[in-house]
């Protein structure tokens, strides 16, 4: 292979190449930016992400493989990468003033963020289990550090350690799963695994166990029950700006790999017969446990943590009919759209949480939100709309998203699963409404940080939830287009 051929691989994944180079440069440049002016690092990171975003959009139609088939560029990955880039920008917007006020502002923050986003993007591109694992680590390790960024605050340290230990544990399980799949098929490339399965020379038992272990590993990342234990503590302990990012980014990346591997590789009927009941069970458990435990939370970060678990459950629910041949497109596009809806809603909610957070982790109890609607109507309204969007009340984005998820489940014939899904939504209405009750129907004197970027994020996401909900057609079509160009 000539050098040019090798270099053309990088050109194939230009947005990612750019992002990683930019992140490495930023690491160096940051050394020369004085402590008091770390805002510049943030701006540079945002600039890098913006360029990445533009590159992604410009290269929307581009498809291909690179690095000997380890990487696959398709509209599916580009769609998710656009979501990730936007998440990154929103994450910087909510972190900018928050880090200053909590005295956490250090240049590494933004660099780590970029590396983590890079890892997530790599995850969406991965067409080889080895690369899935690599991306898995690349996105996780910066997140471990970020979770502990508020050192020496004990909760933050606890979050980092917990996240790291359980993360390492899940990586190990996943690697073991990959090894078993390799044992069964003598390859780690997704396309060759398919070939091996269809040739009939595979040890299906081994493959099934391997697939199950990969599911566990990714289940940790997306916080599916029973692999969710870390979530509330880490979400609560980590600096809120990190939590906001983690809640969206890690989920998007985890589901990217899950969807690609499942839809593409494990959709063989015999294998699906084993895997579908497992998915079914995990989805049901995740929806029930996430929503029911959320009922008992008084801390807004923990409440949103359990809520994010529950939403992973809804997405998993839509993945259940994945192996029905004519359903795959609908399954994937509904999940893609839901991830978008979840991203917008989630950032809206977390931005409001950040606006109310005080030093030393104060201002995070539900009671601290009392009277918010009177003094800060914009924040309260956005939070209320976010809660309604999480419940799935029209005309919000969350409603359209849930509508899509439930429609594939019903189309797939899983009526009981859909029934459990809507009933857990009903349960979730109770705790989401509690936030609204506190903000609108109780009196209090909330303390709020008025920061421009944060407010802009709040308004932008707030307006998006409603307008994109009403005029959702282009986005839905975009998500289905993304599926059509999927390998």
């Amino acid at each position, binding site marked *: 292979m000539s050098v040019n051929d090798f270099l053309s691989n990088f050109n194939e994944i230009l947005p990612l190449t750019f992002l990683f180079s930019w992140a490495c440069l930023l690491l160096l440049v940051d050394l020369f930016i004085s402590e008091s002016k770390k805002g510049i690092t943030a701006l540079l990171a945002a600039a890098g992400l913006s360029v990445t975003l533009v590159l992604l959009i410009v290269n929307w139609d581009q498809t291909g493989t690179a690095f000997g088939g380890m990487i696959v560029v398709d509209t599916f990955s580009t769609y998710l990468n656009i979501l990730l880039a936007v998440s990154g920008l929103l994450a910087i917007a909510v972190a900018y003033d928050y880090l200053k006020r909590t005295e956490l502002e250090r240049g590494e923050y933004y660099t780590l963020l970029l590396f983590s986003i890079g890892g997530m993007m790599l995850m969406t591109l991965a067409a080889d289990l080895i690369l899935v694992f690599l991306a898995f680590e690349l996105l996780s390790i910066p997140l471990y550090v970020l979770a502990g960024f508020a050192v020496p605050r004990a909760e933050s340290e606890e979050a980092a350690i917990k996240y790291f230990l359980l993360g390492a544990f899940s990586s190990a399980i996943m690697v073991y799963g990959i090894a078993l799949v390799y044992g069964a098929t003598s390859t780690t490339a997704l396309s060759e695994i398919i070939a091996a399965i269809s040739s009939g020379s595979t040890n299906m038992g081994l493959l099934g166990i391997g697939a199950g272990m990969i599911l566990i590993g990714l289940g940790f990342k997306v916080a599916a029950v029973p692999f969710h234990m870390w979530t509330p503590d880490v979400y609560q302990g980590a600096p809120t700006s990190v939590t906001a990012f983690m809640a969206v980014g890690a989920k998007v990346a985890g589901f990217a790999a899950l969807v690609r591997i499942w839809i593409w590789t494990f959709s063989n009927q015999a294998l699906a017969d084993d895997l579908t009941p497992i998915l079914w069970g995990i989805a049901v458990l995740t929806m029930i446990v996430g929503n029911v435990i959320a009922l008992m939370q008084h801390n807004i970060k923990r409440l949103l943590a359990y809520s994010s678990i529950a939403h992973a459950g809804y997405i998993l629910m839509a993945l259940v009919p994945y192996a029905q041949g004519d359903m795959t497109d609908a399954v994937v596009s509904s999940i893609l759209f839901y991830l978008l809806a979840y991203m917008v809603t989630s950032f809206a909610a977390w931005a409001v949480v950040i606006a109310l957070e005080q030093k030393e982790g104060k201002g995070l109890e539900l009671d601290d939100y009392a009277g918010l609607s009177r003094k800060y109507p914009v924040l309260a309204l956005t939070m209320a709309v976010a809660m309604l969007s999480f*419940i799935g009340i029209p005309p919000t984005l969350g409603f359209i998203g849930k*509508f899509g998820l439930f429609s594939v489940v019903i189309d797939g014939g899983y009526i009981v699963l859909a029934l459990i899904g809507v009933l857990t939504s009903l349960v979730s209405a109770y705790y989401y409404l509690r936030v609204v009750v506190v903000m609108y*129907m109780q009196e209090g004197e909330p303390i709020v940080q008025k920061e421009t970027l944060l407010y802009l994020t709040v308004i932008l996401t707030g307006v998006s939830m409603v307008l994109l909900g009403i005029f959702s057609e282009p986005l839905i079509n975009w998500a289905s287009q993304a599926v059509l160009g999927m390998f």
Partner: protein
Amino acid sequence: MNSVFHPLTLVTFFPLLGVVILLFLKNEQKSAARWTALITSLITFAISIAVLAQFNAEDPYLQMVVKVPWIKVAGWTIYYYLGVDGLSILLLLLTTLLTPIAILSTWRSIDERVRDFMIFFLLLEIGMVGVFLAQDLFLFYVFWEFTLVPMYFLIGVWGGANRIYAAVKFFLYTMAGSVLMLLAILWLGIEMGTFEVPELIAMNSIPADLQIWLFLAFAAAFAIKVPMWPLHSWLPDAHVEAPTAGSVILAGVLLKMGTYGFLRFNLALFPEASVKLAWLMALLGVIGIIYGAMVSYAQTDIKKLVAYSSVSHLGFVMLGLFALNTLGIQGAILQMVNHGLSTGALFLAVGFLYERRHTRDMDQFGGLWKVMPVFAAMTIVVALSSMGLPGLNGFIGEFNILLGAWGSGQEGALGSVMYAAFAALGVILAAVYLLLMIQKLFLGPLNKEENRVLKDLTLREILIMVPILILIFWIGLYPTPFFNLIGPSVDNLVQYIQGAAVAVIP
């Protein structure tokens, strides 16, 4: 016709203009907010009158249809699809009439966060009107579910002492039914390939055994909203805690969304299931009639009394609908309007009294006739209309329903005249609790010092009541124009049900 300036689009979304204007006001600008909301809702009412003027009463099908693709995605298209026919025209008018009346009733009683109140109220109007006009199941669900949100805030923010409990209960109860309906809607959309209601009716291809399940899923949403016994327990809480204007709209319009849902969707989409399950719906209706009346009788809180009376009155509507004949359904539609007027007016009356005396305990009153003659006269007329006195509107509706149920019992879906017989008992019970209320409030000696100084109704309050009273007499004395409006559509529907379900009728 242009879809934006289409009369039905205008009547649905005109209140949005008021909402936008209100957003630029401050909560302190109370009277500006009140006038904005009032004028907006009056113009909306005027538009609905214009819709009525264009309405062709002889046409049994949907009219003034506006239909544009809203969400066009792989697999199916969701339409922005509005239309009006004899089943919905009166409910549309009822909604646009009661909204300005309700807004006018808040002039003194809502003094906190007036702007926010008005915003939610106008949003509520959009949702309600949309529910009655939507002809696409998805669009219908959007409006249906959306009405929950403003009502939840109206109860939760401006309600009484126990308002938060009542608001959350209202939301969760209603949503519990709605989500089941959502699954049924999704199933229909996926299996039938369309969400358009007229299309689905025209296809008439839903297998009978599935119809039962779909019927029940839709019925779950509607029965909770109506509310049918035994799913009514959210209603007294919501009514008692809601501010007066909220109660008026809740009783006047929101409950009608449930009965209208049965009428528009259950009967037409699942005719065979409707025939098969008519006995059950009628039975629950009759239980509701008697149960509601008996519980009303036991109340000392006037608002609770009126709230439970709704359970009883809507039992009549359900009985009329599931008589599945022209008389019954016509009576049921008219009774929806009647109940909206009478019960709305009763809640207004309770509100007037509460504003003056800050209690709703009937034992605290007595002899009010002497100090508040105008109020007494109006309230008594309304109460008499509610109990079905001949010459007033309630009689016409109930009489038709009873005739319909009797006819259906002899030769029709119900198969037994006992439904009509027990329902007639309900008419007597209604007289008992309402006369008791009249007696406790207005008759007897004026023996409480505080009641001697009560002032009679102001001009504004009289103005609120007069339109309702006019309609009460109009419908009571000369109901023909109203029947003409709904007749053709009902005939059409009844023929359709009988044609589609001819096999199941004994």
